[in-house]
């Protein structure tokens, strides 16, 4: 059987861009007494199963997926991890 690669993709709002959801969650945490919370940034987490065992090719392909679709690089950063 052909090996599968598992990819974890994280998409986050760039540090230079305000994240209104993160600010709202930070406010909620503060009002609950969690005053130590300095900032909250909300992002997206995606899991992909790739039908390949070629890690080198997978890296390039996942990068292309992030650039083209999974992240909007005007306001978002991405990173990913290959597993398995």
């Amino acid at each position, binding site marked *: 059987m052909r090996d599968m690669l598992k990819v974890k993709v994280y998409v986050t709002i760039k540090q230079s*861009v305000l994240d*209104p*959801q993160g600010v*709202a969650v930070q406010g909620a945490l503060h009002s609950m007494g969690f005053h130590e919370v300095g900032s909250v940034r909300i992002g997206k987490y995606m899991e992909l199963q790739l039908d390949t065992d070629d890690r080198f090719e997978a890296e390039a392909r996942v990068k292309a997926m992030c650039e083209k*679709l999974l992240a*909007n690089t*005007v*306001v978002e950063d991405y990173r990913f991890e290959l597993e398995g």
Partner: protein
Amino acid sequence: MKFAVLVFPGSNCDIDCYKAVEDTLGEPVDYVWHTATDLSAYDCILVPGGFSYGDYLRCGAISRFAPVMAEVAKAAEAGKYVLGICNGFQILTEAGLLPGTLRRNMSLKFRCHDTLLRVENNSNPFTSEYALGEEINIPIAHGEGNYYCDEATLAQLQANGQIIFRYVNNPNGSLDDIAGISNERGNVVGMMPHPERAVSSLLGSEDGKKMFTSILKTWRDQHESASVR
């Protein structure tokens, strides 16, 4: 002048756009499904509002890869007129036909009410019948209309007159109060407010009518000068 109204799964302002063209201009207009691969018959393409593909991943992120979008890019390149409204604006930015992106509203609320816009450029094909600085009443209905672009892009938009409309009272946190922009050439316009919902006093405002009459006039002026030549 022939209009196309694109329809994606989840579009919900397509009928409003169609009716606005039909009632305001009486020009031919067709619904065009997102799988279409030929827009050559049309002079103006309207990309309507709604929640195409459920806004999954990001607003407009998936729609921009619909087959019809390659044709929209071709039409824009050929100098035809393209207007994206609300979700249509989001789709055009995702497609790279307009710069920047639309973020979640600063308030995190879905804002659905009348807004006052100021016409910042009336030399655009879609705004030629407005007065410069005219304030018009056009409704908004969005949760992600908070325009953003980097500083260099903003400077370019300002310098080239690409900011078409600004909010008089910013409802969503948009950078520089931006409500609508154009591409550098001016033939592609995107805006969050809905002019197609403001074409009759029965709807509360008819201030959106001039967007439709402007584009028809622009097209006719070109068309007639071409035929006289």
